[in-house]
């Protein structure tokens, strides 16, 4: 794993969307390294249904950015073979739920190949998965599938929440010699930030969380699509007298216990926030490991604000499912402030 971006003379920034930053990350990686290949359904001529691969086939040719037949196991399975021969495939799954047909390849091969071969056959594959809801997608288009990936040793699981991280983390993922499941929050694709594609912020290697907002009362632990919601909640919480810290995990695997626990030890209270269903979702692991490590610093149990334990709702009902500011504040309110020492 290498850190890829280096700070050069910083040109002026301009507004960019997360989709553009992701595109740029692939473009730069492809330009630097001829072994990087992008593949998937509609990634070539169309530029992807979210236009994240826009222009790559034109610039690098169809052999470097390939429209595959419509078969997810086949896409990932052939990517495994390509990686065996020294290429670095970047695979796009069109939507979260359409990655499921590729689970066999992911779980039994992608995640295990390095280990099976005692390191002789690493698989530097990036699997890009647009995930999560909030875009009014019909069924099978809004799943939060991160729990499946987290439960699979051998994978890295990464998810950006900002435009700069989208670029930096994807560069790091492509540079990684291990397989990375790269979860792209669909509803942040069009989120904008001032950002300079020519001097992207240096990015730390995969595996570091970041404190997005410091605070003293309690820590919100979150990632991806829920970061903006948590930032908003933290703003709103000031009115209630709570000064919330917000930690953006960025990497679910490996997990940055250090940053998270340092924050929780400081604040003594924590709420984990994510869209994924609560039961069996990432929050259980996060709450459990924070509690294991910070038990005597905790004034209250670590609480979770998550999607309900139901199949993802139809578009017209999704707002009731998604963790929103109010639900986060309700959880913060239940952090046993009366017991405050």
């Amino acid at each position, binding site marked *: 794993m290498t850190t890829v971006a280096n700070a050069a003379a910083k040109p002026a920034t301009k507004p960019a969307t997360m989709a553009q930053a992701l595109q740029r990350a692939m473009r730069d990686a492809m330009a630097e390294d001829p072994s990087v290949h992008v593949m998937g*359904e*509609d990634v*070539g*001529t*169309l*530029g992807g*249904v979210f236009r994240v691969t826009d222009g790559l086939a034109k610039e690098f040719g169809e052999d470097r950015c390939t*429209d*595959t*037949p*419509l*078969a*997810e*196991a*086949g896409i990932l399975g052939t990517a495994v073979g390509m990686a065996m021969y020294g290429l670095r495939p970047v695979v796009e799954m069109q939507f979260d*739920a*359409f990655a*499921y*047909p590729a689970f066999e390849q992911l779980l039994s091969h992608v995640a295990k190949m390095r280990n099976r071969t005692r390191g002789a056959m690493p698989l530097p594959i990036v699997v890009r998965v647009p995930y999560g809801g909030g875009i*009014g*997608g*019909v*069924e*099978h*288009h809004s799943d939060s599938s991160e729990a499946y990936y987290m439960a699979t040793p051998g994978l890295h699981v990464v998810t950006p929440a900002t435009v700069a991280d989208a670029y930096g983390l994807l560069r790091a993922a492509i540079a990684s010699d291990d397989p990375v499941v790269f979860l792209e929050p669909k509803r942040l694709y069009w989120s904008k930030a001032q950002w300079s594609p020519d001097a992207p912020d240096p990015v730390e290697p995969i595996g570091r969380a970041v404190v997005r907002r410091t605070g003293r009362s309690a820590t919100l632990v979150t990632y991806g699509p829920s970061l903006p919601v948590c930032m908003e909640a933290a703003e709103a919480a000031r009115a209630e007298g709570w000064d919330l810290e917000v930690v953006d995990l960025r990497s679910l695997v490996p997990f940055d216990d250090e940053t998270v626990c340092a924050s929780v030890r400081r604040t003594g209270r924590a709420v984990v926030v994510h869209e994924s269903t609560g*039961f069996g979702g990432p929050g259980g692991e996060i709450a459990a490991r924070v509690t294991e490590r910070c038990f005597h610093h905790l004034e209250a149990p670590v609480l979770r604000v998550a999607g*309900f*334990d*139901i*199949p993802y*709702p*139809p*578009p*017209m*009902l999704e707002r*009731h*499912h998604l963790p929103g500011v*109010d*639900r986060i504040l*309700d959880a913060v309110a239940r952090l046993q402030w009366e017991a405050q020492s």
Partner: protein
Amino acid sequence: MTVQELPGAAPYRPTPPPAWKPRTDPAPLLPDPEPYRVLGTDAAAGFAPELLRRLYAELVRGRRYNTQATALTKQGRLAVYPSSTGQEACEVAAALVLEDRDWLFPSYRDTLAAVARGLDPVQALTLLRGDWHTGYDPHEHRVAPLCTPLATQLPHAVGLAHAARLKGDDVVALAMVGDGGTSEGDFHEALNFAAVWQAPVVFLVQNNGFAISVPLAKQTAAPSLAHKAVGYGMPGRLVDGNDAPAVHQVLSEAVARARRGGGPTLVEAVTYRIDAHTNADDATRYRGDGEVETWRAHDPIRLLEHELTERGLLDEDGVRQAAEDAETMAARLRERMNADAELDPMDLFAHVYAEQTAQLREQAAQLRAELDAEGDA
């Protein structure tokens, strides 16, 4: 054990090799080299005028349904609509060849087939409006839920047909899939199970030239998609998907074969998606107008209209009548779709399990409380 120790080894006299016999005769399984056509050929004369008129009326309604649904996306009344404009002959024929007791397994593009089978269009469009997933009781019209994960409904059709046969019911399942869907593993597994079980199921592949932006040439190198049938030991039929009586005939024969215990058939209908993939798609990114125009000239409605007119089975009145019927249907649909869907957020917890778990009861109570608080505020 060395060679010499093989039981009864020396002296070894070669015997004829173990018998080889193909399990099925490949030759009759091979599809015709050209798509089967009726319109403009002598075969057309063999069709009952009522059937042709019925097909015509349904095609006209179908086209109007497609344009109306597309219009509803612009008015924000549908979240998304994958149009079957240009493919109406397949959609309509698939519905008409089935008996009441049969089952239809549509893909997400096939709301028209479901509607032509008798489903309330508002219910058929519920998924795409976004107020629920499946908007109808599948048992009512024996239409399985519209299926979005490609080709995953094909094994369902096989299982259902197999179950019906085990129960002694002479029910046939007809499953619809796109050219792109044929690349999925589930397509392969479904066809193989169907052939091994000799299940009464008909697979209709609408080869409309594209899977979103990906043209057929990047999807397969097979002579035709119908040729895939050979590898499963079932007949493959190739048909002009814009020739409604031809599609109707080929599917009817396949359904009849399935019903009399002859097993499954794979039908490839060669057609074209005139509109973009969905209203959200920009088809100019991946195909030229020329191709679209060629196919517009081979429009299923025009083709049939021409035949009917030539043969004196349809006059201007008949055309106007069909158009007016379609207009009435469209007006009704527009009006009903303009009414807001009635939604109860508590439904989110109502159908996950037969009995709500304690956890879901808790979560439902939470949402209830939130909604009450919202209401109070």
